[in-house]
C-alpha cells in the first residue's frame, strides 16, 4: 500500500485562510491523526485528500498517483481516487439495505454479481454485521451504522482509509469499544489511514502519529508519546491534556541540560533539554508535580492548597506557590492548607 504525500497545501474560503502551507507524509500502513479544535483545518485537509474539495495551492500524491497538483493543473476527480471514507454522519444511504450500501462501491466498479455477493458477505462478517445484511439503516443502532459506513469504505480494498470524526455520534462507552475495534481492524488489513478528530483520548490511543493543527497550520508532528511529553508549542501542550506553564530565567546545567529559576522555585527546575537564551517557559503536567505534607522530608518550596476536588481515581488540587497557581493531580488525600511542592528533574519541557 502507498504513502500519502501532502505538500504545501493552502486553501482560503472567501478571504479566510483555512489551510496555510500544510505538509506531511503518511507512511504505508500508518494511522495518522489530524487533531485540533473545530475550524483548525483538519476536515478541510481530509476533504482535499478525498477530492471533495480543491486546494488553492499544493500537491497531494498517493503512491505513484498524483491526486492534486495545482502547479501541473492536475486534479483527479474524487470518484477516481480509490479511497475509502467514513463520514461524520456516516452517510449511509437510507433507501438501501446494509448489503446494498456495502455493495455500492463494487457495483460502480462493474464487478460481477457473484463476486459482489461474496465480497459483501466477507466484509459484513469482518465488521460483525453478517446477520444484518437485509436491514435498512433506520433499523440499526448508532454503533451498527458506524460499522456499515466502515464496511462500505473498505469494501473494495481501497488504498487509503479516511475517517472524519467517525466516533463523534457514539456514546462514551460505545466509543471506547469502537476505537479499539477499529484500531485492530486497521492493523489487520494494513490500511494506510488518515483520521480526523478533536478528541485527544482518541488521538492518543489510536494513532501511530499525531499531527496537531491550529489556524490552518501543523504545530506538532510526532508519536502520541512524543507529542504528549514534548509538545514544544504551548498550544499543543494545552490541547493535549492539562498543563502548567512556568516562566523564568534559564541557565545552563550539566550535560547540555538547563535549569529554570523563578522566585518561587529558587533552587531551580532541572530540564533535560538544551535551551538558548536567558529566559524561557516550561510546561509541566499536573500528574508530574509531587505534593506532600509540609513536615514530610524532602526539598521544594512551600505552597497552599486552595481548592481540592475528588475525581474518582485521583484528586485534583489547585496549589498556590507564591504568585503561581499550579494544578496538581495526586493519589493522596490532602487537606486544604500548607503543602510542600516538588517538580522532579526531567518532567518539565520547554515550550515556545
Amino acid at each position, binding site marked *: *500500500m*502507498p504513502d500519502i504525500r501532502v505538500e504545501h497545501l493552502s486553501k482560503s474560503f472567501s478571504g479566510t485562510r483555512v489551510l496555510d502551507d500544510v505538509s506531511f507524509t503518511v507512511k504505508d500502513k500508518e494511522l495518522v491523526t489530524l487533531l485540533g479544535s473545530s475550524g483548525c483545518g483538519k476536515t478541510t485537509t481530509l476533504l482535499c485528500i*478525498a*477530492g*471533495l474539495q480543491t486546494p488553492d495551492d499544493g500537491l497531494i500524491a*498517493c*503512491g*505513484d*498517483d498524483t491526486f492534486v497538483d495545482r502547479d501541473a493543473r492536475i486534479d483527479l*476527480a*474524487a*470518484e*477516481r*481516487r*480509490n*479511497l*475509502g*471514507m467514513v*463520514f*461524520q*454522519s*456516516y*452517510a*449511509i*444511504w*437510507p*433507501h*438501501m439495505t446494509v448489503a446494498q450500501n456495502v455493495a*455500492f*462501491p*463494487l457495483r*460502480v*466498479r*462493474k*464487478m460481477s454479481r457473484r*463476486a459482489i455477493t*461474496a*465480497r459483501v458477505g*466477507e466484509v459484513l462478517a*469482518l465488521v460483525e454485521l453478517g446477520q444484518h445484511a437485509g436491514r435498512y439503516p433506520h433499523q440499526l443502532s448508532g454503533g451498527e451504522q458506524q460499522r456499515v*459506513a466502515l464496511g*462500505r*469504505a473498505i*469494501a*473494495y*480494498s*481501497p*488504498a487509503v482509509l*479516511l475517517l472524519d470524526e467517525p466516533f463523534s455520534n457514539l456514546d462514551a462507552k460505545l466509543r471506547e469499544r469502537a476505537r479499539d475495534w477499529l484500531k485492530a481492524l486497521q492493523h*489487520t*488489513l*494494513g490500511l494506510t489511514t488518515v483520521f480526523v478528530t478533536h478528541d485527544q483520548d482518541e488521538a492518543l490511543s489510536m494513532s501511530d502519529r499525531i499531527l496537531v493543527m491550529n489556524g490552518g497550520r501543523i504545530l506538532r508532528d510526532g508519536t502520541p508519546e512524543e507529542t504528549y511529553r514534548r509538545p514544544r508549542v504551548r498550544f499543543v501542550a494545552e490541547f493535549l491534556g492539562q498543563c502548567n506553564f512556568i516562566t523564568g530565567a534559564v541557565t545552563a546545567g550539566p550535560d547540555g541540560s538547563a535549569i529554570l529559576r523563578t522566585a518561587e522555585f529558587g533552587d531551580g527546575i532541572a530540564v533535560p533539554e538544551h535551551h538558548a537564551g536567558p529566559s524561557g517557559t516550561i510546561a509541566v503536567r499536573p500528574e508530574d508535580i509531587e505534593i506532600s505534607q509540609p513536615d514530610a522530608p524532602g526539598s521544594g518550596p512551600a505552597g497552599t492548597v486552595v481548592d481540592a476536588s475528588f475525581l474518582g481515581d485521583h484528586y485534583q488540587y489547585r496549589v498556590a506557590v507564591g504568585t503561581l497557581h499550579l494544578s496538581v493531580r495526586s493519589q493522596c488525600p490532602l487537606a486544604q492548607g500548607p503543602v510542600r511542592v516538588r517538580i522532579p528533574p526531567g518532567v518539565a519541557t520547554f515550550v515556545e
Partner: protein
Amino acid sequence: MAGTIERPPDVTAPVTATPRARWMPASAGHAVVWFVVVALVVGPFFPLVYSSLRSKPIYLPGGTFTLQAYRTLFADPLFWQAVRNTASFAVGTTLLAVVGGTALAIGCNRTNLPGRKAYRLLLMAPIVIPPLGLIIGWLAIYGQGGYITQLVGQNLHLPVWNLSSIPGMSVLGAVITIPIVYLTVQSSLAGTDSSLEDAARSSGAGPVRVIARVTVPMLRPAILNCTLLIFALCLEILGIPLFLGTPSNIDFYASYLYRSWNSSVTADPPFVSAGAVLLLLVVSGLLILRARLSGSEQRFIAAGARGGGAHRPLDLGRWRWPASIGLAIYIGITCAIPLLGLVLMSCVKALSTLEVPWHLFTAENWHLVATDPTLRRSITDSLLIAGGGGAATVLLVAAATLIAHRSGFPLRRTLAPALIYPRAVPGVILGIGFFWTYLMFTPGALVRNNLWGELIALCVRNLTLAYLVIYPSLARINAEFDRAARSSGAGWWTIARRILLPILRPPLLAAFVLMFITLLSDYDPVVFLQKPGTEVLGVTMLQTWQRGVVGPVAALAVVQVVIVAVVLLLGARVLRRLRRA
C-alpha cells in the same frame, strides 16, 4: 495502484479497483439539461417582444420595426376599458381574499374554533378543484339564470345579485385565491413565536385584543407579500371574464387580448403581442417587488426567536359555535353547492326552478361526451398531456434541480430562477410567446399544429410547481450522502440515479401528482395554440361554452373533477406507502 492492492489474508474475493470509465464528462450532460431548460423558459419571450415591434404579423412578408403596435393598442378605447375593469377587479378580489384568508388562517390556527382541523383541509378545496369546474358550477347556481338566483329572484321575489358584474366576479376571484392567502399566513403563523401572544395574554389582554395588537401586526410582512401575489394573479385571470363577463360585456386585460386575437381582421395582430409585453412588464415588476419584500421578511423571522412548543388556543367564547357554523356555510356555498350544481347540470336538459330537476333528466350530455369525437379527444388528449407531459416534466425538473443545487456546473446558479420564472409569467403571455416561437423557428414548425406544441407550452408554464415540491426535499438530504458515493467511486450521474433520485421518490411522486392535476385543468397557455384535432379539456370547454352549448361542458367539468379526485386519492395512498417504507 489499480489492481495491485495487497490484501490482508482474511480477504479472498478478487477486487478490481478500477472505477468505470465515463463515456463523456458529467458536465456535458449538465450543459444539455441547462440548455433545454433555459431555451424552453426564455425562448418564447424573444419572438413575443420581436413581434410586438413589427409593423405586420411576422408570417407576412415585409414589415419594419415600429412602435405602431403600441400606438394602436393605446388608441383603442376598449383597451382602456379593459384596463379599468381589471384594476377594479384586482383591487376588489385582493381586498376580499386577503382579509378573508387572514381571518380564516388565524381562526383555524390560533383559536379554539370547533372543527378547525377539518376546516384546514376543506379550505384547500378551491386549489385542487379544476378552476373551470368551479367557475361553471358557480354560473349554474349563482349566475344570471342560475338555480339559486332563479329561486331567490323569481320564486321569492327578492332582489338578486349579479355575478356578471365586477363585484360579483371579485367574489368568485376571492374564493379561488383565498387558499393562497391562507397558506401564506398560516406558514407565517407557524414560524412566529407564539410566546409573544402568550405574553400579551398574561398581561391581561383578551383574545380580540391579542389578535388585533399582536398577531396581525406580526403578520404584516406575510400579508403584504400575498397581497402583491394575489394582485399580480388577478391581472392575468382569463377564465372568469370569459365565462362570467361575456353576458354583461365586461372584458379584462387577458380576455381583451384573447378576443382581439380571435376577432381581428388580420389574424394574430402585433398589437396583441404589445399588450402581452406590457402585462409581462407589470406582473414581473410586481413579483420582483414581492421577492425583495419576502427576502427582508425572511431576515426578520430568522433574527427572531423560534416558536416554542404547545400553544393554548385563544378562546372565542360564545362566538365559537356561530363562527364554526358560519365557516361550514361558507364552504357549502362556495364549493359544495357549485359542485353539486355542476353534476346536476350535466344530467338535465336545462337547470330551472320551474320544473323539478328529475323531470328534466337527460343522458344526452353524457352521451355526447362519449360519442362526439372532439369532446372525447379533448379528454384523451388532456390525459396524455397530464400523464406523459407530467412525467417528462418531473424528470427534467428533477435533473435540473440536482444540477442547480448539487453540482459544480458553472452556470448552475441561473437554473433556479429559470425554474421559478414560468409560473410568474401570465399563462396567456407564455401562450402567445410559444405561438410565435413555433411560427418563427424551423424546429418549432414540427410541433406547430399538433399536440406536442400544446404539451410543451403547458409543461413549461407549470414546471415551477415540480421544482417547488422537489427542491425543499433535496435541500434536506445530507450532502455527505453525495460525498460518500463519490468517494465510493460513483460519478455525478450515477449519484443522481442511484442515490439522490431514489431518496427523492416521495417528493417526485408528489410533484407528478401536482403536475398531473394542474396540466389537466390548466388552459391559459394553449388558448392560442389549440387547433381542430388537438383539443384539450380546458379550451374545448371554453369554446363549446361560447357556442352556447352548456350541458356537455358541465359533463366535461365533472369528468375533470372526478379524474382529479381519483388521482389525488391514489397519489395520497401511494405516497403514504412510500413514506412508510
